[in-house]
């Protein structure tokens, strides 16, 4: 048909503002809490004040009898277990038998208003038998008196153990020229999106259930609702309004979403359930508190011989994505480097704390910090520049890793060159005055998990439908979830680019399972790659229908036609053309509105061993960041002044959005580095508010220079790859290594508070190790 698209593109690669931007800046964008249904009730949840306890009895009689109370629900009503991964269904909508963390849901109430619902919660009497608290994951690796879940391995609290060994690690260490060991302790951090979770459910007399929810994975919510409530999926309609940020925190199907639906079924009325900020914090699912023990061996030239890694991961009360986390913490530690021998033992252990789960750059962040600090240390010992050491170890394009990841495009070496040159590295490294420093950190992340989790990999992970009608507009249907990353805009851009029309002809229809074909949502940085390919295919199908019609109108064969801006012309005969609308109306004769569909199915990949698919992806992003820091060595207060962010997302499809992802990632990464931490006393979260959970202020943001140097990916849409999570990872080690360059102390644990900086400098003094003139 018409020829393949070649650059330059009209829209792709430009700086395209979000299509829904005008709605967001005026307050007209509709989030879940902005929706009101006639006669809606308000739901509230009774949360456990006990970290671990057996529920002996729950007396709801007084609460039920209160005027204005429509329903009171406890766990036995819907005891079917669920969870985001089919292999670890260990949650119930409301606690059954026992509670497992402070904040676990004991009962739910639907009432005419919030005050009535709160009074009803206070009237519920719960009798419990307290059980032992388990706060330290190490304790949970041994047999315990009362396992948090029956599914813990052999009477322990271990939720998942991964053991992998490729090559011969011991032999590699035996012949190594040098090796280092880095042990890192990482506090948990959380997403802290601005929009608290919210759900509205409406069961209707036709036997259907409609659920509006602030979710980043409408399809998994759809499945969980069906499984737990026992209603076939086709009688449930899931609508995703605008979502005020997710970062992984809205990717599990969550208990409150099921509870809200259950209460609507029970009462026959619409029910709204809105979280307050403390609800959001205790629901968590953030980045896991982790203890990493990393050993790396290199030869005389700094070539990596082996990794030997152990990880102990604090899972909290539920599995969530934890099985994936346990794999990722190992397998995502290798790229962007070639690692010929690799051994990993990862254990994720249940504790009586709020569950951890997937958070931006899931599984790739903490381990990357340890690895990059270790490489920096090795470079110093071997007297090799950190850039040179990385470059010598770079995975080449079109290669296979020791654990059989398929690497296609990588512009990692270009990232290294760009970051080195733009940052003025060679004039700064070890040469800035004491207290100032630069550091290099690199990164690698999946551009979409190859495993669709819930169904056979032969089914598409994404389908896009287009409808073009007489008005000339093109409606786009797809269940991809825009949560602020700009996927609606990209969807419209791709279709408009291929069909040759103005962006304002595109109407991206709100996600609604009644009309949107399945896409499995915004997680694992899969949307640009998978939705992009599906959208391109659908658009090409629509374009071909238009070209055929233009051929009939002009009398030229379709292969002689080319798509221009809002028109289709005869190649080399610009005077002969039909407008887009003429072609569209021509194509509609006798058939009516044009329909087109496109889908993306990821190719088969991965080795033939247990867990081989974990971390496989149709493409990977690469990063090399330089951070420059300025430390006040008296107070330990430091500032990251600038980050040079060289990133390989293939072709940057929307530069404005990619920059936004990089800058936001740097902010979130520096938060974890500088001070964000879920602080626990025993099992109790001590800082469940945005006042006490320390997110960097505008004044703490460094200047950011985005260096988008990626070459086109061979399979990505228009050559694009992910830019949503990978950009976070390199931030932390770049700054951590810069702190070493500044003050001569390696900070292996996160966060790095000013107190730790001062203490680290003191310890260095005590050890008699002068640094850059500071004795």
């Amino acid at each position, binding site marked *: 048909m018409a020829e393949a698209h070649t650059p330059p593109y009209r829209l792709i690669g430009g700086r395209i503002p979000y299509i829904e931007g005008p709605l967001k800046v005026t307050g007209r964008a509709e989030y879940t809490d902005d929706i009101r249904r006639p006669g809606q009730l308000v739901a509230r949840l009774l949360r456990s004040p006990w970290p671990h306890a057996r529920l002996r009895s729950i007396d709801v009689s007084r609460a039920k009898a209160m005027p204005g109370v429509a329903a009171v629900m406890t766990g036995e009503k819907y005891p079917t277990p669920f969870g985001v991964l089919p292999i670890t269904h260990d949650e119930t909508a409301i606690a059954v038998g026992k509670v497992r963390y402070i904040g676990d849901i004991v009962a739910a109430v639907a009432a005419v208003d919030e005050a009535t619902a709160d009074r009803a919660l206070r009237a519920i009497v719960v009798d419990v038998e307290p059980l032992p608290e388990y706060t330290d994951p190490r304790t949970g690796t041994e047999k315990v008196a009362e396992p948090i879940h029956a599914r813990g391995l052999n009477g322990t609290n271990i939720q998942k153990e991964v053991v992998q060994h490729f090559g011969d690690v011991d032999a590699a260490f035996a012949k190594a020229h040098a090796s280092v060991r880095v042990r890192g302790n990482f506090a948990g951090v959380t997403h802290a999106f601005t929009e608290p979770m919210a759900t509205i459910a409406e069961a209707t007399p036709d036997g259907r259930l409609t659920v509006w929810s602030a979710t980043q994975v409408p399809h998994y919510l759809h499945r969980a609702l069906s499984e737990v409530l026992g209603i076939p999926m086709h009688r449930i309609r899931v609508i995703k309004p605008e979502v005020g940020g997710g970062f992984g925190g809205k990717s599990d199907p969550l208990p409150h979403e099921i509870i809200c639906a259950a209460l609507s079924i029970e009462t026959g009325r619409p029910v709204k359930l809105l979280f307050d900020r403390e609800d959001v914090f205790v629901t968590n699912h953030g980045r896991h508190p982790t203890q990493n023990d990393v050993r790396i061996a290199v030869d005389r030239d700094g070539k990596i011989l082996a990794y030997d890694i152990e990880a102990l991961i604090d899972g909290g009360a539920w599995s969530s994505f934890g099985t994936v986390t346990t794999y990722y913490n190992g397998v995502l530690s290798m790229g962007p480097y070639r690692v010929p021998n690799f051994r990993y033992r990862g254990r994720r252990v249940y504790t009586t704390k709020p569950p951890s789960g997937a958070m931006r750059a899931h599984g790739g962040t903490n381990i990357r910090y340890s690895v990059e600090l270790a490489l920096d240390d090795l470079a110093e010992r071997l007297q090799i520049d950190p850039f040179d050491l990385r470059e010598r170890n770079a995975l080449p394009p079109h290669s296979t890793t020791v654990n059989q990841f398929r690497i296609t495009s990588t512009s990692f070496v270009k990232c290294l060159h760009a970051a080195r040159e733009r940052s003025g590295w060679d004039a700064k490294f070890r040469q800035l005055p004491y207290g100032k420093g630069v550091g290099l950190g690199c990164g690698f992340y999946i551009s979409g998990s190859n495993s669709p989790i819930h169904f056979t990999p032969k089914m598409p992970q994404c389908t896009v439908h287009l409808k073009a009608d007489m008005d000339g507009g093109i409606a786009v249907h797809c269940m991809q979830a825009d949560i602020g990353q700009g996927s609606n805009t990209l969807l419209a851009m791709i279709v408009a680019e291929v069909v040759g029309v103005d962006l304002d002809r595109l109407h991206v229809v709100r996600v609604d399972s009644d009309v949107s074909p399945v896409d499995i949502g915004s997680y694992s940085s899969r949307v640009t790659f998978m939705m992009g390919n599906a959208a391109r295919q659908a658009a090409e199908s629509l374009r071909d229908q238009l070209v055929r019609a233009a051929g009939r109108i002009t009398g030229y064969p379709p292969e002689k036609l080319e798509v221009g801006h809002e028109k289709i012309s005869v190649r080399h005969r610009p005077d002969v053309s039909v407008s887009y609308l003429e072609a569209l109306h021509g194509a509609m004769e006798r058939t009516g509105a044009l329909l087109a569909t496109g889908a993306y199915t990821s190719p088969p990949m991965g080795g033939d061993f247990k867990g081989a698919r974990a971390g496989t992806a149709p493409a990977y992003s690469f990063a090399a960041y330089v951070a420059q820091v300025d430390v006040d060595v008296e107070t330990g207060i430091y500032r990251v002044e600038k980050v040079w962010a060289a990133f390989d997302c293939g072709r940057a499809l929307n530069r404005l959005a990619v920059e936004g992802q990089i800058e*936001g990632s740097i902010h979130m990464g520096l938060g974890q580095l500088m001070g964000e931490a879920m602080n626990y006393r025993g099992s109790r979260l001590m800082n469940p508010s945005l006042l006490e959970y320390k997110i960097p202020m505008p004044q703490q943001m460094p200047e950011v220079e985005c260096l988008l140097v990626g070459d086109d990916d061979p399979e990505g849409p228009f050559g694009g790859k992910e830019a949503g999570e990978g950009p976070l990872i390199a931030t932390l080690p770049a700054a951590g290594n810069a702190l070493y360059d500044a003050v001569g102390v390696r900070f292996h644990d996160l966060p790095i508070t000013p107190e730790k900086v001062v203490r680290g400098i003191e310890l260095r003094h005590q050890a008699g190790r002068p640094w850059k003139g500071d004795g």
Partner: protein
Amino acid sequence: MSSRPMARIRINGSAVEVACAPERILLDLLREDLNLTGTKRGCDLGTCGCCTVWLDGRPVLSCLMLARLADGHEVTTIEGVTPANGLSSVQKAFVELGATQCGFCTPGFVMTATALLRDRPGATREEIERAISGNLCRCTGFLKIVDAIQAAAKEPA
């Protein structure tokens, strides 16, 4: 219910008389009673700035304010600073320069920024950063927000 005192508030230029319990929070009055849902609820604790509105032209956190304290005053919300047609210069700059991602914090930022530029049309980057330090954005890293406010400062309103 009928004995609830009335509050007389000018909201976005119109006089409104509304029943208002003594403990009613201004944010609830706006969102729940008056359906002005452009003002967002992010924390109920004055820690995120999503609920920023103006009281007599000055930015305040509506989640920390009793509605009855607005009695006799002028309240302006995001609906009140949005032109009938099109966007204000601040809003336009936010869209064009990528200062809004998920958008949930955006109305609060627009309120803060619009008041700042009205009072300090030539605000410096430092002044802008200080002014928005009570507004949390978790998506953008603030850089494009500051850029947008600076760009809007150069445009006629």
